């Protein structure tokens, strides 16, 4: 078996994350609006999804620029006012498209990995 170019773990992991992460954000917003800290903690606690909690904010800003989410400020009882993120119709569409593709993709990868380990 030929050895491929030695891969840098952090590069492929970052690439894998990039595609999945923003759709996880959309999924978290499907049923209710959330604020940044809440989103960041949830994703960080889910394990391996976030490189650092702070990296969620450039991503949220991008989702907002692309019209997938919009935001509103709300007062908070515990601290400074919070910027809440809500899914837009465009965001909902992007999420359901991703869900379909993700299921096919996941099944495909799983099948290949299982066949490889069984052989």
């Amino acid at each position, binding site marked *: 078996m030929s050895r491929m170019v030695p891969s840098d773990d952090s590069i492929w992991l970052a690439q894998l994350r990039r595609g999945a992460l923003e759709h996880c954000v959309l999924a978290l917003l499907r049923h209710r609006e959330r604020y940044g*800290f809440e989103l960041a903690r949830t994703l960080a606690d889910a394990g391996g999804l976030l*490189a650092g909690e*702070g990296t969620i904010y450039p991503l949220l*800003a991008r989702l907002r620029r692309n019209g997938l989410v919009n935001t509103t400020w709300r007062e908070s009882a515990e601290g400074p006012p919070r910027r809440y993120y809500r899914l837009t119709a465009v965001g909902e569409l992007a999420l359901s498209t991703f869900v379909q593709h993700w299921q096919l993709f996941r099944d495909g990868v799983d099948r290949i990995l299982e066949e490889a380990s069984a052989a």
Partner: protein
Amino acid sequence: MKTNSDVDKLVAHCLSQLGRELSDLPASRRRQIVEEVSSHIAEGLVALDTEDEAGVRSVLDRVGDPSAIAAEAGAAEFRPRVPRADALVPWLLLLGGFVFVVGWFLGVGLLWSSSTWKVRDKLLGTLVIPGGLPGLVLLGTFSWRTSSTSCGGVSPLGQRVVIHCVTSGFSLPAAVGILVLILALLAPFAVAVHLERVRRRSVNNVHG
């Protein structure tokens, strides 16, 4: 137990580091990210049971490396691909010669090593006029002397040679000599302006 000002200092340090990492982003994007991370940290501190140093550090650790945030923000795409040193080149070529002549050579070096200008621009910048303004002055005085001592000798590029030799040989009206002199004086300025315009155009292309 940390005092409030110690906590503030740690947080402020983290945020200023983030601001620096994001410095290539458009200001509005940078402001929004820093603002959000700042309130994220505030929320994290509120969630702590006791605001001791370990707790504050854990909140900042969880926020992650500012450079990772900058990478996610695509800061690299906004980094000027046109080297900042390019901005110096027209000035160095024009006036660098006054700095022990080295300044002009530095300008030529930067000019040729940059990809901002085409070969045509580089030749123009180097040959019009070697040494820049001080070079022109030197050439002028040099040719004045050579022409007044021995008019037959031809000095390189010296416009004044023409004027003085002309008086002994062919006769050209003095107005032509003056015109040539004025053109020679304006040429380095024109070339500097041209190089600057090419540079600005390429900066705008990168950011547009």
